């Protein structure tokens, strides 16, 4: 994909994530738009593309995060990679795949971030975080992913017409 499209698109996603979404929280939580975009692209695109999106988005999020730099970059890159691999092995053509992947991706993302937090701070109450934050965020992400899926699918068809023909 042309960098002229990719960079502004990912920049827009990152800016929305850190400026607009916190202004309109749903039950106090904001959807992880960056994670949703990376996961959805992982379901649509060839292996590796979503990981590269995750890398760029992760850097942009790390710049705006109080968490140690690299945490979002690492998690989103790995999520993009794993979803791409899973899509090829298990998920292709499965209707349950997108919501299930989104739920798993959110848990995976949060577990890695919490792991970092646990290694850097005094202690982490894992059950509190996972039940009160991760679970509702995963559900919220899954719902929002339904809205993000179709625009990204449209973009994918425009960018990869040859693959669609196959």
């Amino acid at each position: 994909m042309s960098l002229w499209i990719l960079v502004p698109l990912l920049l827009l996603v990152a800016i929305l994530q850190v400026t607009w979404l916190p202004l309109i929280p749903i039950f106090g939580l904001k959807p992880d738009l960056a994670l949703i975009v990376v996961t959805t692209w992982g379901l649509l695109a060839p292996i590796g593309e979503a990981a590269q999106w995750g890398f760029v988005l992760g850097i942009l999020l790390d710049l705006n995060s109080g968490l140690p730099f690299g945490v979002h970059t690492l998690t989103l890159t790995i999520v993009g990679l794993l979803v791409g691999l899973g899509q090829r092995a298990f998920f292709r053509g499965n209707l349950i795949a997108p919501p299930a992947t989104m739920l798993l991706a959110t848990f995976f993302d949060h577990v890695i971030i919490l792991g970092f937090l646990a290694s850097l701070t005094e202690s982490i109450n894992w059950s509190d975080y996972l039940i009160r934050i991760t679970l509702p965020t995963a559900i919220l992400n899954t719902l929002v992913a339904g809205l993000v899926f179709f625009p990204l699918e449209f973009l994918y068809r425009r960018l990869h017409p040859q693959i669609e023909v196959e």
Partner: protein
Amino acid sequence: MYASSRNRGTILILLVVIAILAFLLHQTNQLQPLEDVLLGWLQPLLGGATRVGTGARDVTSGIADVNALRAKLDELQSQVDELSNNRIRILELEKENTLLRQQLGYKQSNPDFDLVGAVVLERNPDWARVIAQDPSNLAFYIIVDQGSAEGVQKGMPAVTPQGLVGRVTEVGTHWSKILLIIDPSSSVNAVVQSTRATGMVQGDALNNPGDPHLIIKYVPQGEAIKSGDLILTSGMGGTYPKRLIIGQVTEVRKRDVGLFQEATIKPAVDFMRLEFVLILKKFTPSDITQEPTPTPTARPKPTPTRTPSP
């Protein structure tokens, strides 16, 4: 941009390695110049987007009459805040008066001691605008548009006229990251205004992210603490100045067994609508070695020795 499938694996491994390397470099502060440049570029975009978003929220939340009412409400709220602050200051002065009388008595009964005490609080007159918030639901940080060029340093407290917001954890040239007191990793040495009981206030945003609260812990069982009590910073540890308003007690929890009680606090600051903060560039930290030694006239109170993590 995308490589052939033969090289794809190598590139992906490289990306992961770069991410780990970035994390390690950040931990040793060697990534700071690059972060500074990148965030400097992004800052106008973030500030603009936040202003547009806030404006859009304001527009969509009501018609013109509602905005007029809101302006009136803001005006009344500021008056309420001012009166509340005055009331708190008067109560504090009363307490201080009592304490000083006790200290005076102590000084007069110990004329060979050389005692001195002072409290100075100098506030930065410039407001710092909140330009972004942490992207994750797992951490509660804000980014403001003032940094080392404006004299901001790591560890400085951030406040609003309503009360304590948090403290600066990272500083760039024209930006700073502030850890909010509602974050579970935040802890503040506090005092109950009415009883002077001390405790440790910790963030409890996990319980209800939509209406984040705080918890005051390590308050000795014998201390009276009730719903409605105001919680202020104690100044111990030197991280925050004394007497900044943290919030108000809404629920007290005591257990038959256990040395301490704890209480839920509603923060004085509305963290869901934080647009501007003040950063305290200079204050004289409370030195616990200057705290008066308990005397028979002054009821001794145990104090926690734990200080907020940096």
